[in-house]
């Protein structure tokens, strides 16, 4: 709030017919609102927002390149964003809401600028303009929503993607509508593991739609590919260097939509939990770990996958506190993969249980015995474990885990 007690606002209406009347109305009746700057385009708006001269941004539906990412950046600079549509345009209003603008006003050309100025003032009356919480899509309040399972594991190859694909497959086999998504921004591998030959990334497509505000359940289903009825896959970025295609705000929107499409959304995450924005000056830059952090923050249940060897085990134990911080209130279940005698010694499960309890306070780990033969066969033909080796002990454990998730 400015020292004068008036609310400084930024206008970015892209020359809409109601812009001049609104300005005139605001100028004639200098109430609480004070126009700091009329921005010509989105870049101008973002620059003015970064300068910190205002607390409210009023954006028109005609403003070019306005997407979820831009709204997120405006929100992070502390601005309260209000959207304005030409007349009672329901589609434009929905799109503005979809990209994260909570307050959308309709500018009626016939009633002049005064009416719009009044409704703007009224909208800001209810909200504290300095607060950012007003931004963002309103969380659906009613109805049964799908749940989100994030599969994380420390650096290395503990078998994150293998566990994620197998658990998703098992969930779908329990007659539960499932979406498997690959949000690994370092080594996306779900498409390879499943032998999917489509080159396009389903998740990146869904994120683009979310960014543009056009993502709904049907659009998400179009982006996904069905392995069979009940199991859809959103493949990851085709090359690790395309990680900027998974920005956090749009990804969060994808997860919200996925909860409407499927009962379980299984997300294969990257390993890195560092919040590298703390190190960067440019806070608006996309974050490579944002995809993982967003998915963990959205998750209801997190599987922490570690490998059963001293190096992998130590990484898991060191990473668990960080993971719990990122996952918030989500339930964290530890899965120890590739359990075998070799690197652990005699009676590996007892030793691992003892160590987990002692060093990480984990009491109910899930052990997946190493089954190289089945894993190799699955890898060779691009199928999940259950598809090639339904009798494998590793598969039975993961099936039990899936059943456990479904039953709650």
């Amino acid at each position: 709030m400015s020292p004068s007690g008036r609310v400084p606002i930024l206008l970015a209406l892209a020359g809409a017919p109601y812009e001049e009347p609104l300005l005139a109305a605001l100028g004639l009746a200098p109430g609480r609102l004070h126009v700091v700057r009329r921005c010509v385009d989105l870049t101008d708006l973002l620059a003015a927002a970064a300068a910190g001269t205002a607390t409210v941004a009023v954006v028109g539906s005609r403003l070019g390149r306005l997407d979820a990412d831009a709204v997120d950046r405006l929100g992070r600079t502390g601005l309260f964003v209000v959207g304005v549509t030409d007349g009672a345009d329901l589609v434009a209003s929905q799109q503005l809401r979809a990209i994260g603008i909570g307050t959308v006003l309709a500018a009626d050309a016939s009633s002049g600028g005064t009416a719009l100025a009044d409704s703007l003032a009224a909208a800001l009356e209810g909200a504290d303009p300095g607060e950012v919480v007003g931004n963002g899509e309103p969380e659906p309040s009613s109805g049964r929503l799908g749940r989100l399972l994030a599969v994380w594991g420390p650096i290395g190859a503990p078998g994150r993607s293998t566990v994620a694909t197998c658990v998703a497959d098992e969930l779908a086999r329990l007659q539960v509508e499932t979406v498997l998504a690959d949000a690994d921004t370092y080594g996306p591998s779900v498409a390879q593991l499943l032998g999917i030959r489509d080159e396009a990334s389903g998740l990146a497509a869904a994120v683009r739609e979310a960014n543009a505000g056009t993502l709904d359940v049907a659009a998400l289903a179009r982006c996904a590919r069905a392995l069979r009825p009940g199991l859809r896959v959103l493949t990851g970025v085709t090359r690790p260097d395309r990680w900027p295609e998974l920005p956090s705000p749009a990804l969060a929107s994808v997860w919200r939509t996925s909860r409407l499409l499927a009962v379980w959304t299984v997300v294969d995450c990257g390993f890195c939990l560092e919040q590298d924005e703390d190190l960067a000056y440019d806070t608006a830059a996309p974050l490579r770990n944002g995809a993982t952090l967003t998915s963990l923050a959205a998750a209801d249940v997190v599987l922490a996958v570690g490998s059963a060897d001293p190096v992998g085990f130590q990484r898991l134990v060191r990473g668990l506190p960080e993971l719990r911080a990122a996952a918030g209130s989500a339930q964290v279940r530890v899965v120890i993969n590739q359990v075998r005698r070799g690197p652990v010694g005699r009676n590996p499960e007892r030793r691992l249980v003892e160590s987990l309890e002692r060093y990480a306070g984990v009491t109910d780990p899930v052990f997946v015995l190493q089954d190289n033969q089945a894993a190799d066969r699955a890898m060779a033909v691009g199928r999940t474990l259950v598809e090639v080796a339904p009798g494998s002990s590793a598969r039975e454990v993961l099936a039990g885990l899936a059943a456990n998730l479904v039953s709650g």
Partner: protein
Amino acid sequence: MPDVAVVPPTSAPANRQQRPRWRDTRLLLGVLLVMTSVVVGSRVVAAADRTEQVWTVAHDLAAGSTLEGEDLLPRAVRLGSVGANYLRVGDADPVGSTLVRGVAAGDLLPVAALQGPGAAASSQQRQVTVPVGTFHYPNDLARGRLVDVYVTPGGDTGSAVGVPELLVPRALVVSVEDAGTRFGGTGASIGVVLAVPAADVAALVAGLHRGPVDLVRVAGE
């Protein structure tokens, strides 16, 4: 906000890698192509094949020899218009026929060199067994060869060795009876069955008693 979609919208099926199967259209097409080309190729080559099976002679045979099965070898050759001059495999069986002229090893068997079975042997020729001492016959002595028969009067007594005398020129070797197989392995002499003109038989038989016999190979037959 809607509930979890009750009738979920459909997604396009994923294009997944297929396990290679034997019932793959491309594989079947490929096999069919290979088989067709093999059949067509062999048929084309067979249609272009103008060779015919003709008898050749396995080893040198002199005139008068009676052909036996082991003397003949079939060969595929392309003779064209002169094919009628040679005996084809499918024609009358030449075994038992007698040669009216010598044929060298590897030569095609001319129709003109053959006489009907037993013709020569029965009418003009007589077979006489001649004992020949070791080292008195050519080492490649075999059926079908022509030899001159010489006798050296008194040659076996060591006194008054006479002038060697030609008993029969160009006698045909019908067979060679090795002493080792026939006469209990003395090894001193062998029996050679010669075909000689009936008129020469008396002179040959008489000559055998006058001294040791030498068989001399007639070259170039």
